[in-house]
Structure formats: C-alpha cells, structure tokens
C-alpha cells in the first residue's frame, strides 16, 4: 500500500519506481475528474524567492481547483530575508500559517533545508540549478500519455544539459524504466559528471554527442531545453551557445527521425524551437504544459492526505 501523506517532494531520487507510477495513475484519474473540494480548508504557501510565473500559477490553480486557499509571495524584496532573517526562521514561522509549502529558491538545496526545518510537507518548486521534481512528474506523465508506456524508450536530451535541471531530474526518473539516453549538447554545456555517475551507478546506457543528426533516428522522445541566459555569469559565453540548436519544421523534414517521435520542452522557449514546429505531429509541449495542473493537483492531494 503506497501512502505519500506528509511526504516531502524535494528530489526525484527520493521516489521509487512504484511511487512514480502510482502518482502518474492518480494524475490520470485527476485529469478525468476535474475540479473538486477535497482540499477545502487547506492553505498552500507559495514561497517564491526566485520568480517563476508558470510554476507559481500552476500550483495556485491546482490548489484552488481542489477547493484550497493560497498565500505567498514571488518577490524577494517583500520578504524578511532582505532584513537578514535566515531561511530556516522564515519557513518555521510560515509553517504556522499554512498546511503545505511550495518553495522556489535561487540556492541549491534550499528545499531540503526547508523540509528538514518544518513538520508540514514541502514541495520543491525548483532550487537553483538543482532539482525540479514536479516538472519531472509532468514530463513523465506526458511521455506516458503520448507513448502509452515508460519502459524501454530511447530519449534524447538536447541543449543546456549543464544547468538544465529539468533534464537532470528527468534522466534520473527515466533510469527506473530501462531507457537508452542520448545527451546532445555543445562541449561547454555537457551534463555534469555527478549526474552521469549517478546514472552509471544505476546501469543506465547513455551516450554523449554534439550533433542531433547523429542520433535522431534512434529517438522515441526528444527533450529540448532552453539555454538559460540567467545561469551564465559571462554574457559572451551565453552568446556563443544561444541558438546553437534550432528546431523547426524544415529541420525536422531534413532529419532522419521516427514517425512517432515526440518533442517535449518544459517551456518557456527562446531560440531553440521555431513556431513552425508547433503544428507538426512531433510537438507535444503545450499538452505537456497543460498536464501541469492535474499532476500538481495530484501531488498536493497525496501529500496532504486527501487521497489515500
């Protein structure tokens, strides 16, 4: 019997394969059933020390669609941390106001520190270049929906694999499902050694290449990431790599790919995907974005014990 009541959602590494599949099954049910009142009387605190309109709004929408209330902030300037208050003190005070915390922070590991400091459940809404587990559940849900299963898929990760936390988290998750992984990036944005070590220790078969055309014919899923300007301290380095991979309908027509290849992207996009791609059968990234609501509804309901 799987119970996720009071479980923190900090890192995809904290979840077993069975728990992942359970969350995806409940998400499917949640998408069918729509709104309800199962979180009536519960309060979510959205603590966004780093701006992210999309993640914040999707949690807010998910909570409200289940009858709950939302408080919070999305600007560092409005918090006591600018007065020098420690993160631990801030969250220990806020836990008295709410039933669950969603935290986004610019420091890596801030969510784990928060979870260690409070007794209510904490969900990591993205911390620095580290983990973004709820996006990973959204990605997994989309892959399962469009491919029918998660087992034995070939998945390519394209773009910024150095700072792209969603790619790191998804790679860890797909390690549970016997995936063949292809990491496609320029040398300066290769996947950090840590992540490859972790995958190696779990006997994942992976390959690192610079060109998409080298491996495109093998892929069932192509996971694109944005090259994130905000992660570069040197703008010259950013200019060197921005737009290095640009997918469009014309590019896809030239590439040798499987007919049922599906392209995911956590969005927002900048130069890496042209709008001409949107109408092709490959594009599922808007469907992916919309899956954010049922998946986050599920996670909120499970950790708050509204679904047993």
């Amino acid at each position, binding site marked *: 019997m799987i119970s996720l009541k009071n479980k923190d959602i900090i*890192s995809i*590494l904290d979840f077993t394969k069975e728990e992942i599949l359970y969350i995806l099954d409940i998400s499917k049910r949640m998408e069918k059933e729509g709104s309800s009142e199962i979180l009536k009387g519960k309060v979510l605190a959205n603590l966004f020390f780093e701006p992210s309109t999309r993640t914040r709004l999707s949690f807010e929408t998910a909570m409200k669609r289940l009858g709950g209330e939302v408080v919070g902030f999305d600007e560092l300037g409005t918090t006591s941390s600018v007065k020098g208050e*420690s*993160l*631990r003190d801030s969250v220990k005070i806020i836990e008295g106001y709410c039933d669950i915390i969603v935290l986004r*922070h*610019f*420091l*890596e*590991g*801030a969510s*784990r*520190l928060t979870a260690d400091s409070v007794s209510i459940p904490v969900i990591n809404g993205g*911390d*620095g*270049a*580290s*983990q973004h587990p709820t996006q990973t559940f959204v990605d997994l849900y989309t892959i399962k929906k469009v491919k029918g299963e998660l087992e034995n898929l070939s998945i390519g990760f394209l773009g910024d694999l150095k700072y792209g936390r969603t790619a790191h988290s998804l790679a860890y998750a797909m390690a549970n499902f016997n995936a063949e992984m292809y990491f496609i990036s320029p040398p300066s944005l290769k996947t950090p*050694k*840590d992540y490859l*070590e*972790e995958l190696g*220790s779990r006997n994942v078969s992976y390959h690192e290449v610079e060109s998409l055309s080298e491996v495109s014919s093998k892929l069932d899923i192509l996971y694109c990431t944005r090259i994130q300007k905000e992660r570069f301290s040197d703008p010259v380095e950013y200019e060197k790599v921005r737009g290095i991979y640009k997918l469009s309908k014309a590019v896809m027509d030239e590439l040798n790919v499987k007919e049922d290849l599906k392209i995911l992207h956590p969005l927002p996009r900048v130069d890496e995907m042209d709008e001409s791609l949107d109408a092709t059968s490959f594009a599922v990234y808007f469907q992916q974005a919309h899956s954010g609501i049922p998946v986050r509804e599920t996670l909120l309901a499970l950790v708050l014990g509204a679904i047993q």
Partner: protein
Amino acid sequence: MKKVEVSAIEEGTVIDQIASRNTFKVVNILNIQDIDQVVLIGYNLSSKKLGTKGIIKIGGKLLTQEEVNKISLIAPDATVNIIKGSEVVEKFKVAIPESIEEFLKCFNPNCVSNHQKVKSRFHVINKNPIRIRCHYCERHMGEDDIELV
C-alpha cells in the same frame, strides 16, 4: 636488522599508511603546531602497499572520533596505533562513516549550506575511491573536492 626510519615514541599515537601526497593534509587536520610534545613526521617512506607513504607519530595524544573521521576522508588506508610504554596496545584502520556532518564544506558555491547557518551534511556513496553527495544540493564530491573546515 630492520632499518628504523622514524624514531619510536613512548606514549601517544602513530598514524601509519598515509599516502605520501596526503601526509601534510593529515598534519593540518591535527593542528600539530599546537602540540607541546614530541611529533615525528616521516614522508616519502617506502611502502609495499602504497609505493610511498607518510607516518605521523604524536607523543601524548589520543585522537578524537572526529579526527579519525576526518583522516578517513583524506587517507582512507591509514592505520592508527595507540602506544603505551613503547608498546602498541591498540591498532585499527580508519573507517569512512556512512554520513558526515559539519567538518566538510560543500564545494558548490551555490549550495544553501554555504549561505545559511546550517551544518553541512554528506552521504557517502562510495568509500574507495571516496565519493560523497551533499545532503542539500545533491552534488557529488571526490577526493580532490574535499575541503575540511
């Protein structure tokens, strides 16, 4: 006759089987400059197991568990001999603990443990060669990344 390369001590601790390159890192851990008794340091001594090794003999000192834990991260092959009346009364090999708190610094400058008042904490994922994972940011560190505090 066996050649004695570093003189014996009557009471105290001998740390042996330190890979030569790490000898002075172990010296630094133990704050040897503050000890007022005999300290003998051997460096680049021949060793069948390690090629060359270091040895540190400290008069009148017993190591704390924290010092042993620190040494295990820097010199995982080290052995500790406790000497009384010029005899070895206890001998043990250092052992890397399953988790490590406080005395290491995460090498990730963006890790929350380097910005907030919080004890650093690491999980050991491999003992030889040493690989540890930060409890907070989950970054992995190896021998070259380890910085004791």
